[in-house]
Each structure stands twice: as C-alpha cells, then as structure tokens.
C-alpha cells in the first residue's frame, strides 16, 4: 500500500504545474491543458481519500468533476475556434480588446 502522503504530494505537484502553466504560458490551448491538470490534481486527492476512508462519495464527485470538465472543454474549445477565426491567433496576451 502506497502511503496517502505520496498521493497528496503528487497531487500538489500536478496542481502547481497546472497553476504555473496557466500563469506563464500564452498559448490558449496549453492554458486549457494546464487547467485540466489542476482539475485532475483535485480528482486525485478525492479518490485518494475515497479509497483511504472506503467511502463512495469521493469517487462520485470525481465523476461530476469529469463531466463538468468535459463540458468546459467543449465550450472552451468552441470559444478558442471563434477567437482564432477573429484574431488568427490563440495567444491569450492578444485577447485584450476589452482593456480599460
């Protein structure tokens, strides 16, 4: 049995990578992927504790998260396609038309 700590540390590393990716990368697709990383880091924590405490609710929430993530990806990719058509680019730094 791998100790719970290892799962949690792995999850923290993945989450941090996601955060760093969102903050530092300018390609919108990579930002999306980083977001998925963060979601899945959270998922990892949920199933870890679900297994540890032997309850099902944690696994149940993971399914919800995955469904929401799928929906989010569908909407996000549609947005990306629309932005690419308008701007000929998926660079998030160039999406500043609403700058005050």
């Amino acid at each position, binding site marked *: 049995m791998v100790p719970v700590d290892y799962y949690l540390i792995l999850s923290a590393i993945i989450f941090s990578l996601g955060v760093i990716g969102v*903050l530092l990368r*300018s390609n919108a697709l990579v930002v999306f992927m980083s977001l998925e990383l963060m979601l899945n880091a959270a998922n990892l924590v949920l199933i870890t504790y679900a297994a540890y405490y032997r309850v099902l609710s944690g696994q149940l929430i993971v399914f919800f998260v995955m469904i929401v993530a799928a929906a989010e990806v569908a909407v996000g990719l549609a947005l990306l396609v629309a932005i690419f058509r308008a701007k000929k680019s998926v660079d998030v730094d160039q999406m*500043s038309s609403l700058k005050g």
Partner: protein
Amino acid sequence: MPIPEASQLVPWVVFIPLIGLGINLLFGKWFKEGIIGTVAVLAALGAFVVAVLLALGLKANPEAVVRPLAVWAKFENIRLEWAFRVDTLSVWMMLVVTGVGTLIHLYSIGYMHSDVRHNGDPGRFRRYFIYLNLFIASMMVLVSANNFFMLFVGWEGVGLCSYLLIGFWFEKGAEGTANAKAGKKAFIVNRVGDFGMLMAIFLMAAAFGSLDFDVVFQQAAGASSDLLLAITLLLLLAVAGKSAQLPLFVWLPDAMAGPTPVSALIHAATMVTAGVYLVVRSQALFIASPTSAAVVMWVGALTAILGALVAVSQYDIKKVLAYSTISQLGYMVAAAGMGAWVAAMFHLTTHAFFKALLFLAAGSVILGMEHGHKASASDADHSVDDPQDMRNMGGLRGKMPVTFTVYLVGALALAGIVPLSGFFSKDEILTAASHFPAIFIILGVSALLTAFYMTRQVYLVFFGRTHSHSAEHAVENGAIITIPLIILAVLSVVGGELNIFPTYHLEHWLEHTLEGIHPSLMVPWVMVVSSLLAISGIVFGVLLYRRYVRESSLQVDPLRRVIGPFFTTLQQRWFDRAYQAVLVGPYYAVSNWLSEIIDHRVIDGFIDGIGKVTIWSSEKLRILQNGYVRSYALAVLFGAVILIGYLLLH
C-alpha cells in the same frame, strides 16, 4: 316686477367680457383684425349695457341687492362666496369702467393696428384685445364683489392684466429689457400693497368671522379701535400700491411702457382708481377709525403735490400724464380721507373722462409722430426721433387739429377751468378741504402746478415751431381714433353736470349706499380761489413757454431758469433711488452672494467634488484592467490563496 329682474343680470357684467375674450382666444386665429376688434368692443359694450340696465333697475328701487352665484370654499368658521352686490356705488363704478372702457376698446382698434405694425408683430393684435377684455372682466369682479374676498380676486386680476399689458412689448424698450422690467416692477410693488390687503382680510376674518361687506361693516362699530386701526392702515397700504400713492407710486411712471390706450384705461381711468373705490366702499371702517382717515388724507395730499411737482419737469408726453395721474389720485384719496366720499367718486369719474381723453389724445400725437417719422425717413437725415419726447414735437396744432382741440379740452378740464368737469369735481374736494387749512394749501398749490404743467405740455406739443422731421410730417389720424376722442371730450365738458347745484345727481345716487354724506355745497370763495389758482398757473405757463417754443432749437427749459437746479432735482426720481439703495440694492447683493458663493461654490462644489472623486478613483482603478488574461488568473490565484489561508487559519 322689473327691479329684481334687472339685478339678476349682474353676473353678465363679468361673463360677457369673458365670452368675448373666449371667442378671440379660441377662434381669433382665423379672424381678421376688424372682427377681433369688433368682438372685443361688443364684449365691453355688452357689459356697459348690463350696467345701464342695472342702473335703471336701481333708479326704480335703490335698495342694495345681493346676488349669490357660487360658493368658492366652505370652512368650519368661514364661508367664501362669490356673490354680486348691486348697489348704487358698485353700479356707478361699473358704468364708469365699462363706459370709458368701451370707448378705449374702440380707439384701440385704430391705435393697435398701427402699433403692431410699427413694432413689427401684427400677430399680437389678438393678444392685446384678449388682455383688454380680461381686464374688464377682472375689474367687474372687483367692483361687483359683495365681500372682501372676491374684491381681492378682482384686485389681483386687474394687477395681472396691468402686468401683462405693461410688458406687452416685453422684448422692446431700452436694452431690450426695459418694458419687461417695468412690468415686473409694477407687479412687485403691487405685491407689497397686496400684502396689506391680505393681512387686512385675515384680520377681518379672524375678528368678524366673515368677509361680507354687510357683516364686517356692521361689526366694525363695536370693534376695538386698535383692531380697526390695524385693518384700515393695512387697507391703506393696499390702496397705496394699487392707486399709486406715497410711498408705492414708483411703478406708475414706468407703467407707461405699455401701449398708450392701456395707459389710458388701466393706469389712468379705471384700475388705479380701485384704491379709491376700496376706501369709499370701506367707509364704515374709516369712519370708525378717525386716525386712519387722517393718515389717508395726508397720504393723498402729499401724493397730490409730489406728483404735480415732478410732472412739471418731465419731457416725455406720457410721463407728464403719469405723474399728473398720481397727483389726481392723491386728490381722490385725500377726499376719501376727509370723508368727502361723493367728491372722491365725482373726481374719480371726471378724471376717468379727461385723463382717458388726454392719454388717448397723447396716443394720437404719438401715432402722428410715428407716421411723420416714416414719411421723413426717406430724407437724408436718419436721426431717430423719440416720438414721445415733447422736445421733438411742437407746431402740431395745424397738423392734427382734432387732436389739438380735444387735448386742449382735456387739459383745461384737468386744470380746472369753468365750466369743464374738472373744475366742479376739484372744487368739491377743495371745499371739503377748507376745513383743514394745511391740506387746503397743499391741494391748492397742486392745482396751480397742475394748470402750469398742462399749459407747458400743450405749448411744447402743439404750439410754436416743429422741432423734428417727425413732427413736420405728422398727420391727423382716422375716424376710429378721433371719434372716441370727441366723445370723451364731450364727456369731459359736460361731466361736471353730474354733481352740481342744484341737482347733485351723483350725491343723490350714492346716498342710498354711503353713509354720513355731507350735503354738497358750492362755496363761492373756494370757487374763486380755485379758478384763480388755475388761471395763474396757466398764465405762468403761457409767459414762460410762449416765446420759448418759437425758437428753432430748444435750449434750456425756461422753468430751469426760474427755479434753477431744483428743476433737475425733480427729475432725479428720489424714491426710486431710495428703494434702489435700501431695498433693491442690498437684495441684489444678497442674491448675488447666494448665487456666486453658496450656489456656485458650495453646492456646485459639493456635487462637482463627488464627480471628481469618482473620476480620479476610476483613473486609478483602470490600471488593474490591463487586458492580460494571465494577470487576471494570477489575481484569482491570490484570491484563492488568501481565502484558503483564511479558512485554514481561522
């Protein structure tokens, strides 16, 4: 029973003019000038016919009749009712107002036809006649009222019409605002008087529980003398405002900004006599308060001499008549204060005839001058002659013979020459004044001055050389102008018959309504003195001005050579200056301070400050919205960290 039927007609003195103005108001747009004028004249004439019928009814049965029309408002302890009072005094006022008013309406058709074209807005012809009919209706409300409340309604109504008609050419006058300012001044000064009226009404309502004339006058006998003194002095304030007495007369000379027939109707013949009517109507109050009556007498007498003094120094043909009106109103008020009620009403009537005549004739002169100005405008000389300045006139006797004749009649009547109407009415006042030596002397000197300034005016206007191109090309006006003049001239001549030995018609007419009438007397020595005063005034005027008006260019007024710098002193409008210094100036200063400091700086500063803070903070906050999605993401991260950190540590 013809008598009650006649008095039932009384609401029509108000409603016929209202119908006339309604027709012109609703349909006048499609009428020609002739039809508008005819409707207005018929409305005034209709009111006159009703007044005559009422008079015939009263002749058969002179008892006062009260005709309630409507209840205005009911309160727990007082009831305000629109009721008409038909008695000899109110019907007499109706006859004078509508009679003279009809003639002035007729004259106005001709005068306004030229005036609206001269001033460049023919569309105002209709408006003028609407106002004029409204005035007649308001004046009828005033004189026919059975209580002080409706009297006040009419009082305000005529004040409104006066304001509207003074400012009739509101965009004209010096600097484009002089006429509007004149209207405003008349309105505001009258407000001061109206304050007195309102306070008197409140006092009466509180003390007597009713405003009906009968009730108030009946209870006045038993009221405390302090209360009566307060009421009557407040009423005197109202009289001073409306009838241009000291110290509130300052609006009347400025009121000459209105069209000349308006000056004749409102500011000479009718509205300004409302104050005299008020004193005579409230005679019971003034009899019960001798102190007030004495004050009224002195106010009238001092006004009489002040008006006459200033009139001798004026150059504007209408201003002379305006100050003369102030002076003559002073006579009436003084007579009312002396208890010579009939003499006051008599002078009111004859004055309505001859002063309306003088004003209308002056209007005829002005029209002739304006016509002459147009005729001579093709000349190389384009000098703008003021058509009202008497120094531009002269020699109009031959050019405007009818106007000259009637003007002479009016001037002689005003000066008080036998056997014209002014002689008899003024003589009656002087007879009553013979019991008060000081008053007699003041009024006597005023009579002398009156004769003098009218002689001066007649000489400057009609005799000698012409002193401008306008005067040279002046022409006589048409029949619509001259016929009312001739009728008024006839009335000015025979008006004295109304109340002379041995018939005394007016006295016997009014004795059914007024109390304490002393039988009129013809005192020979008073007649001789007043004639001598009038004649010496005329002789003095002739001596001074006979040669002067023949000079080709007018130099220093000969009167100035006689009285020196006092002449200029008279022209200074001291009362206006005093009001300016004491009331108007400080008031403007306070207003300016409130406007400049409180409004512009404090209030505006507060509001502007809120705006500026918003703008400043927005300027600073917009930096956060830099448009980089990743920086927003960083902000979200920080937020999340802070929230979670809080939850963990809490």
